[in-house]
């Protein structure tokens, strides 16, 4: 392998087979190099920011349709395709299809991609190159993962023998659903291990270099949320050994373009190879900020056939990235959806975002909204800057993990570099903070309410008995609020909701209607006679379940038949009249009890 050095083929027009922040990130570099950009999107995604930011755009039915993307690139006259991450980024077939169509694929060769895509063959290469791999086998604790997997899907940690079977079953199911391949691997699970990866780059002249490590130990649901470089757990000696191992591995397979060699770093200081990601990583800005390089630019240059010329790159200062996701930390990090009504990026950090005001966040795509990356000479300052950036950012319309990220960054374990991959934060909404946010929203709402006399303040009273109380709901909890203008909050109103932002936290606030939908609150109802008459027929029996509207009794009154119907659902508790009986107006006929309703 290694390949014959091709001629330098300058790229003039680049199709970006991706969306969101990474598509915008790639366009930024492309534009700085004078390369025209082509965006792709399905119809439903055509209003996403990446489409507007590109020089031109093409419609495809799906970001996963390789054929359509290649066709779009040809139609647009593009000479290269950048896959970004996710979607088709690690599809050897796609890379091959690009090559066959005469398009430069910005990434490794199809062969390398397919070799590394399977965890089993990747382990074999590592073994051959003398890079330690995590021992396989069924020794407990054990980690089960999908052979074709990534992103934490199909991954299970098993600590007890009796859990093995069920974990295998569920992991296999998840792997099949996610990757169409239920093959599983079993590895020894290393307690307290950190996730440390090394960025490598290879060119078409056989040169493979490393750009130091990234520590991605802080995760939730096996997905990274905070990444930094240097790793607080890596010494200079360890760094040299890990980076050497990564370069050795890269060289062994003639690696080209950007790649990431992932390692588990055990508390003992031993490290084990996990896998190679054959694409640009989400967290690549961390490396950019400590090296001063533009990795997308390097990717394009390598793809054009230029040689890497990176002697003397240093790891300078400290960079940390936090990923802002549309998700609900208090609800198992379930993805949240909605329209971004408020997006006010904060200061003090590089913010790579894929959203704008009005962006729809759907379940169709990855819920990553933006990446915040801070750099400073030292780790503490970088953490402080990143925290500041997150605190000063307002997002409204979709629930995010912003406040969760802030709590992680401020946690002692993280500050002291102790967070490992199974470290987690007990996160719950802070009730008193929510109350404060609700009070601020109440102030906004109260001021917003004006009446037919616009010059008279809302809630004006010449005899004020008490402050107006506004009932507001945050995440299912109702707060009784008094307008408080002293809170340092910003409030945006949109589509019936209020988005409150403060440096201490954020919330989506909704007004609880004063008069809830009128529903008969009674548990007990009687059907009464509306006028004097005679009972013709009784249509129900005691204990019979009835729905609202069901006929109960037929009366004859004024020579007409009249059907008496149930107003509430429940069971017939008692029949108070007999057939043929003469009844007075208002007389109770049938008693219905809804308390047994739950049985039905």
């Amino acid at each position: 392998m290694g390949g014959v050095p091709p001629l330098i083929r300058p790229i003039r027009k680049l199709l970006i087979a991706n969306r969101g922040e990474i598509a915008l990130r790639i366009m930024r570099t492309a534009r700085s190099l004078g390369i025209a950009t082509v965006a792709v999107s399905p119809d439903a995604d055509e209003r996403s920011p990446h489409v507007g930011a590109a020089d031109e755009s093409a419609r495809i039915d799906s970001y996963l349709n390789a054929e359509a993307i290649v066709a779009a690139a040809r139609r647009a006259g593009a000479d290269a395709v950048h896959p970004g991450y996710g979607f088709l980024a690690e599809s050897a077939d796609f890379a091959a299809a690009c090559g066959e169509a005469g398009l430069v694929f910005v990434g490794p060769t199809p062969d390398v991609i397919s070799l590394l895509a399977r965890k089993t063959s990747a382990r074999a290469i590592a073994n051959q190159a003398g890079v330690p791999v995590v021992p396989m086998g069924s020794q407990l604790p054990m980690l089960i993962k999908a052979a074709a997997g990534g992103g934490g899907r199909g991954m299970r940690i098993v600590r007890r023998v009796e859990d093995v079977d069920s974990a295998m079953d569920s992991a296999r199911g998840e792997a099949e659903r996610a990757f169409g391949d239920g093959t599983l691997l079993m590895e020894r699970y290393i307690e307290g291990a950190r996730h440390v990866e090394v960025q490598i780059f290879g060119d078409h002249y056989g040169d493979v270099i490393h750009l130091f490590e990234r520590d991605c130990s802080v995760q939730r649901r096996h997905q990274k949320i905070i990444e930094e470089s240097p790793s607080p757990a890596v010494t200079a000696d360890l760094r040299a050994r890990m980076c050497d191992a990564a370069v050795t591995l890269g060289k062994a397979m003639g690696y080209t373009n950007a790649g990431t060699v992932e390692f588990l770093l055990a508390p003992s200081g031993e490290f084990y190879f996990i896998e190679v990601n054959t694409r640009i990583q989400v967290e690549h800005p961390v490396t950019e900020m400590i090296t001063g390089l533009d990795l997308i630019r390097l990717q394009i240059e390598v793809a054009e056939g230029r040689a890497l010329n990176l002697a003397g790159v240093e790891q300078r200062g400290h960079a940390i990235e936090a990923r802002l996701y549309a998700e609900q930390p208090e609800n198992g990090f379930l993805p949240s959806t909605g329209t971004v009504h408020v997006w006010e990026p904060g200061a003090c950090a590089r913010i790579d975002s894929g959203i704008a005001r009005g962006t729809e966040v759907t379940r169709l795509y990855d819920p990553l909204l933006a990446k915040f990356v801070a750099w400073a000479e030292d780790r503490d300052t970088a953490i402080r800057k990143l925290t500041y950036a997150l605190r000063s950012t307002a997002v409204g319309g979709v629930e995010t993990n912003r406040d969760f990220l802030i709590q992680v960054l401020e946690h002692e374990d993280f500050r002291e570099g102790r967070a490992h991959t199974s470290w987690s934060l007990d996160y719950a909404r802070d009730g008193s903070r929510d109350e404060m946010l609700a009070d601020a929203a109440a102030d906004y709402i109260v001021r917003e309410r004006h009446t037919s006399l616009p010059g008279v303040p809302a809630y004006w009273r010449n005899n004020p008995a008490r402050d107006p109380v506004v009932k507001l709901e945050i995440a299912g909890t109702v707060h009784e609020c008094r307008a408080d203008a002293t809170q340092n909050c910003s409030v945006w109103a949109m589509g019936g909701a209020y988005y409150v932002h403060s440096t201490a936290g954020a919330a989506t606030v909704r007004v609880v209607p004063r008069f809830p939908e009128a529903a008969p609150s009674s548990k007990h109802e009687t059907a009464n006679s509306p006028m004097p008459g005679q009972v013709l027929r009784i249509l129900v029996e005691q204990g019979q379940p009835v729905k609202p509207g069901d006929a109960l009794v037929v009366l004859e009154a004024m020579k007409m038949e009249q059907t008496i119907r149930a107003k509430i659902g429940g069971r017939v508790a008692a029949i108070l009249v007999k057939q043929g009986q003469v009844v007075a107006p208002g007389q109770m006929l049938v008693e219905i009890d809804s308390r047994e309703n739950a049985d039905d």
Partner: protein
Amino acid sequence: MQPLRSSIDRDSQSYQANYAWMSQALERLRTELRRSTQGGGEKYVRRHRERGRLLPRERVEMLLDEGSYFLEIAPLAGIGMENESAGAGVIGGIGLVSGRECLVIANEATLKGGATSEAGLWKNARLADIAVENRLPTILLVESAGADLPVQSKIFVPGGRGFREITRRSKLRIPTIAVVFGSSTAGGAYLPGMSDYVVMVKRQAQVFLAGPPLVKMATGEISDEEALGGAEMHSRISGLSDYLAEDEPDALRIARGIVEHLKPAPEIAARRVRPPEPLYNREELLGIASSDTRVPFEIREVIARIADGSRFDEFKPEYGQTLVTGWARVHGFSVGILGNNGVLMSESSGKGAQFIQLCNQQDIPLIFLQNITGFMVGRTYEEGGIIRNGAKLINAVSSSTVPAITIMVGGSYGAGNYAMCGRAYAPRFLFTWPNHRIAVMGAQQLAGVMDIIKRDALAKARLPVEEEKLAASRQALENQIEKESDCYFATARLWDDGIIDPRDTRAILAISLSAACNAPVEGTMEWGVFRH
């Protein structure tokens, strides 16, 4: 229209003294008002809540639109009087319900079970006047034990008028909605009885002519309250109730729904635009208003703090200068303002009469800023026809048909009270500042006059003058009059619609004008014979 130019000196001793005095007076006002909102006190409030009921003020708040203003009328009625509490057991005022200006009246159920006192009767009568004069739909939030029995002699006979008024309003197409939250018995049963719409709260409303004990006494029939006059009985059987509410919020929701389908109020353009604020700070009114009614102050300084953009188009500025007249806008409403700048003279009276006629000709509402010691006295002025000329002003005020709103910004003495549209001249609304004093004349003068008369009588009867006794009785009389001239004495007796913070004057004028505009604003060109 030119803006007025203010020339007050905030550092002056008089400004500082007035400000300090007024601040203290407002502190007392706030305290009294706060007390007036506490119903029958902690124990009864707790008992009421324990029965799962909303407090009367909570009912009012829940009935009103969110964000609506509420101009409470006579919140301190009955204050300081025997057998009375501040507010007289009634909460009444103007606010928005379903976007419509309504008069809301609620019984203070935690105070003597919401029973009506004598001052409560006066207050109800005043509220009924407001409803009819301004054509405001009226919502009664009923929970009352009826007449305060120990004082029934003061209430029973005149109290009948209230029921008559409901039906007379109905005839004039001014609807009344009664929401019954609790007891509304005997005579009180005619509140729902006479109303156009009746809502009753399940398991709470009790409406009957006689309760179970009286029924047993009268006919021997044994009955319980729910069967005799419960909400379900009245909604299903007697038909007295039009709507059966599940609970209190449901009842208020229903009442709001009823208002929604009423014929809309007349459209008024002034209500929709945000008006320009006055150029000068309303806070300064506290230092402008004189704490001593004998010390005059420039009324234009007040106008500059209530008129839109401080703009005031003065009429006859060079003539009869003790009465300032002119046009302005207040919250967008075009108004004619008459303000005292000294004692009323022949010229100023004539000018005022002419101005009132001009406003009537153009259907412009009037605002009286009353700070008057009376008409000028003395031989020269009597010869100059001060009575004849003053009568012109009183004539014009009496016959005027455009809405008038009177603000007592200082003293109100003698016939000046009449000429400047005092209570007897039926302004639509009348509010007073805390520095307001009201009497036929100043206490000192009154006691002095009585002293002179007594001395004359003694002289006629050739009796000796006992100086000490005379001085003591003079002092006692002066003290009594002084006490009776106080604004709390006045407001307790419904001589006004409430004591207000001067800084609220502009908002109160806006709400008053807006309420007044629910009835057609039509001036008259018909006047009694002017004595020329």
